[in-house]
């Protein structure tokens, strides 16, 4: 008989055949129950069917009746709590769930968490939710997540949760840089690129809309170590008065091992909530493994998640500027370079002579100096990075410190001391260029390394 109804094409009163069948079953069960009212399993079955049919009031009566007959029946308790939850009697549901705490399955736990959230017991809710996530890391529920996953969410007051907010933030160091582009010597080309790509869209959104230019995407900075990639990223944040989140090598590494996707999502969420914000990934090549390693699927996950976040699949990246730096651009996954992602790839070269002069001036500030021919020193340090110049001055300073101790009076730094230090400290960029040169010569199919060839004055 049920077969026939199930297969029939017609509907009665807009009800689906399945509902019709259920209503029939419930009616039949009710009749059976009236004959033997002490049959506990039968009543329980009926109550559960009613619950499924959203007949909460009737189900509640039957569950209570079951509990009177067999006290402590877990199924009945859970069913009752479920009814309370759906009828909005959260505190009653919480009492039952608390009794059953260790016997709850995932669905029940989630209802428990939701009840707690509704009753504003957020701390308890978070504790239970953590257990659920520990058992099933991929679990997601938007309603709960909006309350619990992002504690920095400003809309909800969370009594006693201040500590958690802090720890969440300090995991990914957020700051508000004070330096501006004006504080960065040289690098005009890079400043222009960053400005055009991510600063102007924030300042003149209408103009960009008029031209139909999509904002978003990111900039990948590459170049030898110590040439100011991080510094210019910070300055970009300072320029637009935005917050700055720095994700370093070890943060990225932690992503590989452990809850990678979740962590990555968290970072992007944090940036979105704190817009305008500059999200800076240092040594981003650690995320895209080399071609040979791509077979390992674990690595693909993080890359895909990262790309999805960048594309703004789940949420728009309005006001989030994504910058990344690497000194091994050849290890960066090719998928990162597609339009809409890191579609601007900028070579951050060692400072030119003018840039070096400025750096030397600023490094020497506040130090006891004699007469110093800055121009001469700048000429003597071709291909030196900012970090190299720092090291040179440091060597000279140490030398002078020792001399001062011996002489008993402060000995100022002179040009010849610096020139001597230059002989001791060779440019660390040389090693990088030796490798980069090979890539530019032999693996430059897409013209990615043309800037390097230009800088090294090589023609192909």
């Amino acid at each position, binding site marked *: 008989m049920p077969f026939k109804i199930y297969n029939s094409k017609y509907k009665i009163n807009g009800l689906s055949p399945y509902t019709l069948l259920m209503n029939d079953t419930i009616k039949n069960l009710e009749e059976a129950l009236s004959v033997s009212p002490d049959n506990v399993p039968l009543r329980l079955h009926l109550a559960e069917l009613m619950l499924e049919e959203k007949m909460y009031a009737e189900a509640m009566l039957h569950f209570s009746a079951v509990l009177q007959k067999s006290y402590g029946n877990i199924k009945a308790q859970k069913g009752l709590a479920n009814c309370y939850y759906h009828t909005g009697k959260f505190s009653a549901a919480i009492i039952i769930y608390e009794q059953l705490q260790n016997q709850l399955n995932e669905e029940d736990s989630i209802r428990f968490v939701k009840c707690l959230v509704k009753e504003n017991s957020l701390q308890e809710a978070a504790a239970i939710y953590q257990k659920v996530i520990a058992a099933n890391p991929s679990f997601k529920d938007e309603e709960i997540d909006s309350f619990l996953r992002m504690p920095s969410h400003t809309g909800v007051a969370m009594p006693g949760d201040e500590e958690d907010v802090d720890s969440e933030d300090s995991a990914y160091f957020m700051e508000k840089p004070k330096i501006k582009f004006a504080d960065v010597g040289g690098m005009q080309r890079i400043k222009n690129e960053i400005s055009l790509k991510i600063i102007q869209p924030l300042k003149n959104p209408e103009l960009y809309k008029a031209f139909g230019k999509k904002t978003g995407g990111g900039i990948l900075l590459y170049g030898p170590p110590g040439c100011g990639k991080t510094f210019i990223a910070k300055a970009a944040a300072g320029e637009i008065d935005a917050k700055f989140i720095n994700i370093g*090598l070890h943060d990225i*590494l*932690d992503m*590989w*091992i*452990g809850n990678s996707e979740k962590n990555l999502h968290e970072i992007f969420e944090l940036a979105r909530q704190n817009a305008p914000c500059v999200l800076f990934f240092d040594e981003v*090549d*650690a995320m895209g*493994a*080399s*071609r040979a*390693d791509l077979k390992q699927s674990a690595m693909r996950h993080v890359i895909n998640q990262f790309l999805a976040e960048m594309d703004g699949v789940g949420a728009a990246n309005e006001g989030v500027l994504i910058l990344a730096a690497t000194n*091994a651009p*050849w*290890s960066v996954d090719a998928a990162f370079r597609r339009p809409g992602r890191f579609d601007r790839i900028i070579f951050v070269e060692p400072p030119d002579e003018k840039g070096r002069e400025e750096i030397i001036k600023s490094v020497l500030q506040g130090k006891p100096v004699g007469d110093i021919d800055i121009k001469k020193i700048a000429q003597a340090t071709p291909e030196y990075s900012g970090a190299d110049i720092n090291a040179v001055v440091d060597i000279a300073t140490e030398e002078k410190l020792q001399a001062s101790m011996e002489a008993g009076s402060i000995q100022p730094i002179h040009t010849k001391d610096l020139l001597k230090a230059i002989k001791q400290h060779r440019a660390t960029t040389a090693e990088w260029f030796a*490798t980069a*040169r*090979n*890539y530019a*010569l*032999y*693996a430059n*199919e897409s013209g990615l390394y043309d800037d390097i060839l230009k800088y090294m004055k*090589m023609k*192909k």
Partner: protein
Amino acid sequence: MNVILDQARLLLDQGRPKDAEIKIKQFLQQEPDNDYALSLLTRCLYDRKQFDDGIAVIRNAISLAPEESFYYYLKGFGHYQKDDSVAAIDNLHKAIQLNPYHAEYYGLLAFILLGTKNFNEALGKANEGLAIEADNITCLNARAMALNKLKKTDEAIATMQNALAQDPDSEFTHTTIGWNLLERGKHQEAAKHFRESLRINPVSQNAQGGLKEALKSKVPPYKWLLQYSFWINNKGKKLKRAMPILLLIVFRVLITLFRQSDATMGLAYVAGGIYLLFVIGSWTMNSIANFFLLFHPDGKYALSGTEKWSAITVVTAMLTGFAILSLALFTGVGKGTAYDEDTILAAGLVCLSLALPLGEMDYPIRFKMANKRNRFSFLLVITGLFSLLAVLFFPAQALLLVLLYGVGFLLYNWSGVLRY
């Protein structure tokens, strides 16, 4: 598995041995007796070319876990990189004894045996490895190389094609094929494979060296010389050492024989000329080929500073030498003056012969840091230049200095030959 070690491994796989080393040392502070961490540290050290340190570390790991075959493999690899083939073979045998079912062990062993010119044994080991894992790239490469050395060309080609079919993106295979082709004289095809290998891994020094040789082979005499050096290298060290003396004796005998009768007198000069060309060529041909490379769009960047400068100086010395010689022989320009024909001839010869020490020197010239050979070359060049100056300003007395230079040159030559 410990998270720190996982991260270290990841860093190592990403080519960041320095960062990986920091992580491992951090872990070893807590667990100094973890043999797996020690083996990872060894790999870091190897990646940074610190083979001695790496071997010392893996020795510790072996004493902690003497049953782990991989550690012997690592130790053998370190010895192989240091050209200590006896120790390398010993360790690889131990690794294979402990785990006879790992193809990679046989592959490395085959490569070590290739290095010691035991081509048949190498082929055997590569085949054993392939019996375990039919698509092992290392074994396929070793097999291809061994077959090529054994002149089994067809089989070698088949093996190389097989290896490429397994992994068309293996820089290793492309480099092997390149060298094999180069050895058979097909320098253009070889260059293609070296380029492909460099496209995949631009920092491969082996492929860079191969590409350079392939490009230089465009100069025919260099190609012949390269073939000769492949041949003599395959024959083993003893013959390589004896060859210059053998050649000298053979040509001496030939020349004396030809001189016996007037009919073959001309052949004696031909033989002498061939011998001289061979000797001079073997010393200077590399620099001359490098000189041609300077005008090649890729080649000019493939040369190191030393190669570039020795190419320029050698070619300059030779061209000047020839110019002066032809001046003396064909124009008779100095007749009647203090610069008679003999003096100019001597100057030309000095100039020409300077090409040899110039080609052997390291550039930029740093007398303090140089080794003995380099200092000898430097002294000889200085003497040569002085004798040239002397010829110019005191032609009458100059011959004494030229003679001194000549003696030095002969000494230099023979000490150089006997050095190998």
